[in-house]
């Protein structure tokens, strides 16, 4: 089963990359883009019987390794079943 994990900085945490990208976009003339936040995106192939099980494994893995709980939060989607 295919799991997608989105890791983003917690809202209160400063995102210098996003800020710099937003500035670059303004320099390029994209003034309609007002805010950019940059995060990480993972695709995992998980051998699991059910979507719930895949989600559980993805959650564990995210909490332990993919995301840094001190500054980041994560969200999981299982390919054929958004959650």
């Amino acid at each position, binding site marked *: 089963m295919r799991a997608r994990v989105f890791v983003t900085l917690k809202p209160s945490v400063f995102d*210098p*990359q996003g800020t*710099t990208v937003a500035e*670059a976009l303004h320099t*390029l003339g994209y003034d309609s883009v007002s805010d950019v936040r940059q995060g990480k995106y993972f695709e995992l192939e998980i051998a699991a019987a059910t979507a719930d099980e895949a989600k559980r494994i993805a959650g564990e893995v995210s909490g332990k390794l993919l995301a840094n709980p001190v500054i980041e939060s994560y969200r999981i989607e299982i390919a054929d079943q958004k959650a």
Partner: protein
Amino acid sequence: MTFAIVVFPGSNCDHDAYHAVKHVLGANARFVWHKETNLQGVDCVILPGGFAHGDYLRTGAIARFSPVMADVVKFAEAGGPVIGICNGFQVLLESGLLPGAMLRNRSLKFQCEHVLVKVEQTDTPFTRACRPGQILNLPIAHGEGNYYAEPEAVAQLERNRQVIFRYVTPAGEAVDAGNPNGSVANIAGLCSDRRNVVGLMPHPERACESALGSADGLVLFESVLGAVKEGAVHAR
């Protein structure tokens, strides 16, 4: 002869390049701020190492939109010699002046160390003073120097003899043991199909004086100095 050293916000080897060409090589050098739009009067352009725009997003991704780059492209298209060192190489890749892209080092770590690099081609303005097959001891200092291009693109680079530097072992072999970062075909540096634009990950400007551990990098700057003096290369 005058070198232009482009300074992007976040460049940090700009002063090193300046020191090498001005105080070691004895040529003229001037800094060109990335917002300037005129390279007039320069004979060679150096895009120095560093972290332009913090290397945020991707190395070189934002720098290629700097105003000065339009003139750098013009200068290159007119045949002028351009060298991108480390971050400068990454800017050349992002701006399409050289083909391919950089991935993270396969160690996933920044690596700073001396490596051995073999000169594969001596018909570029930056290698013409080298012996064919000469092995240079040069430092690298990068986190994303793992050169990648699609197999057909690499084949074309090889056909056109555009691979001018390769990482090698002390025995001079371009095998995995000599490859510090995972670059495809051990590629350490390239030239454009017209051969006047050169990019490389190692830092020749850090290896121009024996007090710094190696003076092997000076030959690149001597090469272009000779090429310009003899009129072998210039922007027309």
